[in-house]
């Protein structure tokens, strides 16, 4: 690119010498150059957003590990390392072309653009005035998103699911279900057509992951010792610094998750999205902190952390279309919701160690509906249709996959393995070798 600029300059100099009227030309080339530079800036931003979303996987790994017991830590870390790898590879193989099929084959409901992605880097530039990045940037940014949906499940089913069963479920879900459902909206499918709006994926990513989490939790049942004689016995996470690191990294990554969903470096939009994202997360912390302080008498760190995530999931659907004040409200309410939901699910004996269902599913629904409430551009009814449509299909698909695996190779580890921990059971290894740890639970 740079070279062509240079040669144009030389060319212009030659023209100039001959006194030719090069005004239009010069202008055009120069504009070109300005637009190109904008493209460079946009593409750079999108790659920054990509690595931020990548980092969210470390965030999930840390959060999940921190919120569960030391004896299952290796298992959780292993799952998260495997998921991001499987996610990227399957997205390259089928996901990307299932999500962005170019042409739909069944209505605006299903399409598939063929296996694999391009091979060498001289591929098309994408620049339609809104999106501005290369084909490769497009792929890798989306690939980082894809694995997120699977990771959400991981936390909810932690401490009791067989490793290989989980990997099979995950692979199927991330390779087929997530991208197919994504195509309905981001791929230009029927929901996009109807005016449904989900900016960065409150529904498309978080609820879709959350529905699978719910299906898994139902089919697996609670961890041993969680609900005894009708009462709830909390099983405490083993490492709060790790959980906190996880949440801060997720928050950080969300600047890329939401900020990158602008699909260009458009200064106003990206910066505005930064503001709503940060504000909603902060308000989420406040909401969860205050409500947990009232209910539990003492403020619960894990609730405050979940509150941040709740605010983030909540703002994700409308980060670019709601006002700052709305962002405060959306985030704050999400923070309240997550506390109520965590406690409520526990009452319903749905055992979700990290609160994934509350954060991603419930707040994902809230965020999607909030777009219909706080932005006059979008209709609440349409948002609701989207939420329901995604809910029905995602949940059904997840139940099917989990169910099939349960019926065949089984989902749950043996009681003995659960007691001794999955680290020794599934991996023959301990996470904190040398540390003295109570394993009375």
């Amino acid at each position: 690119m740079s070279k062509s600029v240079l040669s144009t300059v030389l060319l212009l100099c030659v023209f100039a010498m001959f006194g030719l009227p090069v005004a239009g030309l010069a202008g055009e080339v120069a504009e070109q150059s300005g637009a190109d530079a904008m493209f460079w800036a946009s593409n750079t931003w999108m790659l920054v957003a990509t690595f931020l979303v990548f980092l969210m996987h470390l965030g999930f790994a840390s959060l999940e590990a921190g919120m569960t017991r030391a004896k299952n830590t290796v298992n959780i870390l292993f799952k998260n390392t495997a998921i991001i790898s499987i996610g990227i590879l399957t997205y390259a193989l089928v996901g990307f072309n299932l999500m962005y099929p170019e042409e739909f084959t069944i209505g605006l409901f299903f399409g598939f653009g063929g296996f694999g992605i391009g091979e060498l880097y001289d591929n098309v530039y994408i620049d339609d005035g809104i999106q501005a990045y290369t084909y490769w940037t497009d792929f890798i940014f989306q690939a980082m998103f894809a694995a997120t949906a699977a990771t959400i499940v991981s936390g909810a089913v932690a401490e009791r699911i067989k490793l290989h069963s989980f990997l099979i479920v995950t692979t199927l879900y991330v390779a087929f279900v997530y991208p197919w459902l994504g195509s309905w909206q981001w791929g230009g499918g029927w929901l996009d057509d109807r005016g449904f709006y989900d900016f960065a994926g409150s529904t498309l990513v978080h609820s879709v992951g959350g529905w699978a989490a719910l299906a898994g939790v139902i089919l697996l049942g609670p961890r041993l010792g969680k609900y005894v004689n009708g009462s709830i016995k909390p099983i405490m996470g083993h490492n709060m610094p790790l959980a906190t690191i996880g949440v801060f990294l997720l928050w950080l990554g969300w600047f890329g998750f939401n900020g990158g969903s602008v699909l260009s470096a458009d200064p106003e939009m990206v910066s505005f999205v930064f503001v709503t994202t940060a504000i909603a997360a902060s308000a989420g912390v406040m909401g969860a902190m205050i409500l947990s302080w009232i209910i539990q008498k003492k403020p619960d760190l894990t609730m405050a952390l979940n509150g941040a995530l709740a605010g983030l999931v909540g703002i994700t659907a409308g980060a670019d279309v709601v006002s700052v004040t709305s962002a405060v409200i959306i985030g704050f309410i999400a923070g309240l919701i997550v506390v109520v939901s965590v406690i409520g699910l526990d009452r319903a004996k749905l055992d979700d160690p990290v609160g994934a269902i509350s954060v991603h599913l419930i707040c994902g629904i809230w965020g999607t509906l909030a777009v219909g409430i706080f932005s006059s551009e979008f209709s609440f009814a349409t948002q609701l249709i989207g939420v329901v449509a995604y809910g029905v299909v995602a949940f059904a698909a997840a139940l099917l996959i989990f169910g099939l695996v349960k019926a065949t190779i089984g989902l749950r580890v043996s009681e003995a393995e659960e007691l001794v921990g999955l680290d020794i059971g599934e991996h023959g290894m301990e996470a904190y070798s040398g540390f003295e740890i109570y394993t009375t639970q």
Partner: protein
Amino acid sequence: MKLIVAYIQPERLNAVKQSLYENEVYRLSVMNALGCGQQKGYHESYRGSDIEVNLLKKVRIEVAVNDEFVDGAVDAIIKGARTGKIGDGKIFISDLTECIRIRTGEKGKDAIGS
């Protein structure tokens, strides 16, 4: 006065506490321990090499009781800890010559608590 020391499976601790409580033994002390008995260990593997782990995680309980409570306490421990599987644990009993409550200076039967 006797000192009862029991090694049990960690996950049985709550049941043992519960059944001691039901036998009116309210005081006990608990420690982490590693134990090696009939129960065979397991194999860990790290970076391609095998490790035989035969020191398994156990919980060590200490209960000091007056003589008349010994049988009840032992039965309670057995009731709480027994699953019928190898590794259920073991109980050791020895004599105590004296017991003193630090706060009050009480000695003997009164001090021990049960």
